[in-house]
């Protein structure tokens, strides 16, 4: 469906992407993970044909996305990372205009999506909140039943309940055979929908795996609070698990795939609470990044 092959683009000031390659198969939900500024949006801009690569190419169903950009767009639904609509319109007018430009009668699906995402489409765009713009953007990307939907940070600005609705929406479309490319800086967001994911860092793809593999590579920090301070000390000394920090009755452990061992060790002690802390992407895959760097 989508082939990104050796994509390279350098900007003034040293930023850019180098030799980015991955393939997204028909009917697959592909995650594109990376911290802010890693090159996710730059890659997506090339896929959309907004930029000409220095080297390499992107093709969608065999069509080059730069030289055949207007034909390629028939296959794509797109949600930009930073949404900007045309000024002086309301949501409904904008969506109708876009449907005219897309050349597809999508009024039925559009109405259904608006109802699903629960927003007032007649709100003027300049009065819309970030989340509301995001919803209009999602409708715009889905309404014309494209074969490939490209979403740049789709859930930013959405509340948790709407994030859930969004995930359901993606899974329904996937069941119909729609292909997705979804970028994110949050692993949990990708985890729930994607089959495979690529991790990009400083403009290079550092990992390309299916979701199960990524989940087992994932490094989580688990905070265990023991009933007794002595237990905490005892645990830290004897468990053999990598201790990140320790204080009074609290021990923080880095876990990477070895959940069973953690549970077994903990079972010997009285435990007051367990917390899994949220981490940024680099921390989650720190171990993995380190290995890569050492290998180079």
């Amino acid at each position, binding site marked *: 469906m989508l082939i990104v092959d050796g994509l390279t683009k350098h900007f003034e000031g040293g930023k850019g992407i180098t030799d980015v390659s991955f393939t997204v198969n028909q009917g697959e939900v592909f995650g594109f993970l990376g911290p802010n500024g890693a090159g996710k949006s730059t890659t997506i*801009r090339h896929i959309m044909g*907004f930029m*000409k690569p220095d080297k390499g190419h992107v093709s969608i169903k065999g069509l080059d996305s730069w030289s055949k*950009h207007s034909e390629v767009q028939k296959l794509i639904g797109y949600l*930009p990372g930073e949404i900007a609509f045309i*000024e002086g319109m309301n949501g409904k007018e904008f969506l109708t*205009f876009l449907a*005219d*430009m*897309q050349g597809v009668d999508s009024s039925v699906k559009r109405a259904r999506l608006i109802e699903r995402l629960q927003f007032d489409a007649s709100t003027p765009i300049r009065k819309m909140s970030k989340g509301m713009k995001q919803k209009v953007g999602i409708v715009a990307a889905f309404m014309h039943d494209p074969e490939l939907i490209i979403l740049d940070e789709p859930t930013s600005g959405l509340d948790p309940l709407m994030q859930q609705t969004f995930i359901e929406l993606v899974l329904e479309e996937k069941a119909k055979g729609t292909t997705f490319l979804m970028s994110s800086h949050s692993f949990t967001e990708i985890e729930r929908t994607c089959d495979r994911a690529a991790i990009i860092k400083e403009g290079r793809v550092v990992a390309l795996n299916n979701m199960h593999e990524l989940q087992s590579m994932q490094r989580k920090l688990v905070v265990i609070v023991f009933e007794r301070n002595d237990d905490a000390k005892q645990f830290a000394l004897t468990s053999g698990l990598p201790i990140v920090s320790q204080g009074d009755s609290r021990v923080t452990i880095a876990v990477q795939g070895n959940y069973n061992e953690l549970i077994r060790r903990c079972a010997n002690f009285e435990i007051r609470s367990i917390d899994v802390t949220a981490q940024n992407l680099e921390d989650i895959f720190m171990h993995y990044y380190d290995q890569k760097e050492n290998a180079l």
Partner: protein
Amino acid sequence: MNLPLLKLMLKINMKGVSNYAFGSAFYIVIMFWLYPGIADNSGALNDLLASMPDGLVSAFNIQGGFGSMEAFISGEYYGLILPILLSIFTIMVSTGLMARLVDQGSMAYLLSTPTSRRRIAMTQASVLAFGLLMILLITTAAGYLGYFWFIGDRYEFDSSRFLLMNTVALALFIAIGGISFLVSSVANDEKKALGLSGAIVFGMFGLDMLGKISENVEWLRFASLFALYQPSEIASGGGNPLLSSAILLAVGIVAFAAGIVSFSKRDLPL
């Protein structure tokens, strides 16, 4: 051309176009209304003009004097107010049609539909050209209206010279529109596009004025498209307005084409 986009852009820009068009029409009607009072004293006013330095008179395009209606209107409107008005319109609209959409990012939506960049740019260019045409058509029509209302057969009025003045004005602003459109098409930043086209257009306007004030720096005018637009010469039947129009139109078409082509080939930071 893309029809939905054309419709939307005309709708968005129609208010601006009609504001400029009616402002311009109103002004020209007032000028026609004022003329009879001035014409009766034209002898005294022409003496006054004669007593002023030649350079200053020609810089403000009032050397035509007050002897005929078209001479009067060429000095009082076509020489200074109209070019300034249309320059502002052209700079604002050309920036709004391209650079603003790229700067804000809404161009991403236009490009995510199955329309080529070339067609989008052509549509936007035609909106600017259409706006200029509308303003000048309404201005010309208002001139005739003023003539029938206030002048009639009482004073001299050469209708073909008046039409030529409007034609050259349109050609001039197609050329200037083309240049601002080119600037707007290659800019990523709305403010930079606005600043650069403003500097180019008003720079050329200034060069033409300076060149006329002093013969020592007359060569400055060769760098200015405004040199090809001399309403007072046309009013007195001189100059070569058709050749000027042809050159200006050619410059305009080349500049618009360059804008469209460079937009369709460049990297967009969307």
